[in-house]
Each structure stands twice: as C-alpha cells, then as structure tokens.
C-alpha cells in the first residue's frame, strides 16, 4: 500500500507545482485565427519558440470544426459561430502543421516557431 501512497504523493506534488507555476506563466502571447468557408485565416502563424502561446480561434462558419494537430498536441472541437482558446508550446523552432479535421481538404495551416 505504501507504494500507492508514495506515487499519489508524487503525482499530487507535480500537479500542485503545476498549478502554482501556471499562474506565474500566465503571460502567454496571444494570436488570432479565423475559420471562414472551411479555411484558416491566416494560414501561417509565426510564434516565438520556447514560450507558451495562446491562439484564439474564431469559427465564423455555421458548422463545427476540429482544430487538430498531433505536432502541436492539440485536438479541440470549435462549435459553429463561436470562439475557442487553443494553448500550445513551449515549442522548439520548426514547422508545426495543423488541420481542421472536419474539412481536412481545405482547412490547413502551419505554426512556425522561431
């Protein structure tokens, strides 16, 4: 039983450390994206590497879209006519592609960390 208590303790400590740090790091940079006619505007965002970044995605279409990127480790449904916040990073410099999974033929974009 002691093993479980120790592991729980470690997990709890990690979560608490995370909570206390997250308020300190709340100064994430913000970017905006619009989904219109199943396309992202702009299709390319340049963000600083090594930092937390907030992307506000506004879906102006009537249908829902899923912001999907294994590279950015994001999977988020954005209902039609609404906004959503996508948190990414810290990223190492490079290209990170994302798609709108529900309209993958047209909804494509890339985050460039530099």
């Amino acid at each position, binding site marked *: *039983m002691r*093993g*479980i208590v120790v*592991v729980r303790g*470690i*997990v709890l400590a*990690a*979560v608490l*450390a*995370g*909570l206390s*740090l*997250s308020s300190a*790091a709340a100064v994430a940079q913000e970017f905006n994206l619009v989904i219109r006619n199943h396309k992202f505007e702009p299709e390319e965002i340049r963000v600083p590497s090594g930092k*937390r970044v907030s992307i506000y995605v506004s879906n102006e279409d*009537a*249908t*829902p*879209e*899923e912001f999907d990127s*294994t*590279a950015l*480790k*994001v999977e*988020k*449904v*954005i*209902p*039609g006519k*609404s*906004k*959503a*916040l*996508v*948190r990414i*990073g*810290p990223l*190492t410099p490079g290209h990170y592609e994302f798609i709108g*999974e*529900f309209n*993958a*033929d047209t909804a494509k974009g890339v985050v460039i960390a530099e």
Partner: protein
Amino acid sequence: MLGALVIVFREAIEAGLIIGIVMAATRGVADRGAWIGLGIGLGALGAGIIALFAESISGAFEGSGQELLNASVLGAAVVMLMWHNAWMARHGREMAAEMTAVGEAVMTGKRPMTALAVVVGLAVLREGAEVVLFLYGIVATGTSASSLLLGGVLGLAAGAAFSALTYCGLLAIPARYIFTVTTVLIAFLAAGMAAQAVQFLDAAGMIDVLGRRLWDTSAWLPQDGILGRLLHTLIGYTDRPTELQLIAYLATLAVMAVLTWVATPARAQRATA
C-alpha cells in the same frame, strides 16, 4: 463519401479497440453482453448530449471546459481500469482455473462488470461526441449530405467490424492465459489514457510544468497513421511525448503493478513461489 468514412472510422477505432479488449476480458461472464450494451448505449446518449452542449462546454472554465471534460473522462476510465485489474488479481486465478476445468462454463455473480461497462461508456462518449458533431456539420450544410452521411454510417460499421476483429483475435488465446493477456493490455491502455489526460490538463492551462518534448519519432512512425493510431490506443504510443506524459505513463504502470501485487491473495503468491 470516402472522406467521411475515414474520419468516422478513425474516431471509432479507439472505442472499437477498447470494446474488443473488454469483451475478451469478460469472457465467460453471463450477462456481459447486457452490461457492455448498456455502456455503449449510455455512452452514445452522453455523446449526443455533449455535442448538443458543445458550445457551453467549450466556453466553460475560461475556455478550457472541453479539455477538462476530456481529462476527467480519461481519468475516470483509468481509475475504473485500475479497479478491474486489482479485482482480477484477487479473483482471476480462480476464474482461469474454473474456465480450464469446465471449458466454456459460464461464470455468474460477483464479477464487477460495472467498472468495465463504465470504461466502454466513457470511450464511446469521448469519441462519439466528435462523430456526432462531424455528422451534424454534414447534415447542416445540406449539399450532398446523403452520400457523406452514408460514408459516416459505413465508417461506424467499419469501427464495429474492427472491434469484432480485436475480440476474435484475443479469443484465439488459450483460456488459461486470456486473463493474463487482457490484464496486461488493460494496464497499458490505462497508462496511455493517463498520458493523454495530463496533456489535456496542459492544454487547459492547469499544468504548466515538464512540458518539454522528449523525443520526436513522427518521421518513422507517425501517430496519425493507421499503425501509429492503433499503437496510440493500445499502448499509448505518442510520437512527441512530453516529460509529464512519460511520467504519468510510467506512474500508472507502477500503480497498476503495485495494486496487482497488493491485491493478489497470499495463498496464490505461495503457490507460484
């Protein structure tokens, strides 16, 4: 149509794999069909409700509602899987002995099917909500909806077929080993879910530590390919894991091992020594 089929199948594959494993793990339990059916039904109902309230969920908790919901659902599933494995450690040996002794004899009573039914329900709920939203989008656009909808339905059917395939594959394992195999599979399933859950907490802005990427194997085995996706569900494969994800993964496996060790009756331990 093909596009819709692929999307729905991709979402259905994870729930399908989990249902297949649960069916194999509950081999011989009298009323498992009813329990699993109940799990699927309630999960689908829940998926519909989540899709209906997608906008308010998305807006809750300063825009992190969806991530927190996903993390909670995954966390609950991990706890249920731990409960199941602990229970199996205590009783599995008798069950396996019973099965070999009387062949396909049906086991009745005490087995807690609730835990696994909940796991099935949660898997259907999580993947299903996306399918419902996607299909809703198709219906709402109107144009060529019927052909896309057909694709969606075929995707679901393919997911169900995949589930059956998983189950049949696992059934080929001899009865004496089946519970050992499913217990190990469930431990890895839980570890992968825990790693996903912490990533959702990170995306929700709840956790902001150990977010550094450990490695990148996306060039060799991309997580969004078919094999990568299967391994992702089965053992929690991630092509770009963060430090925290690896910790959550290993911690879950460790807790599973400790639980199994603690729950195993002393009598059984002596027998193997």
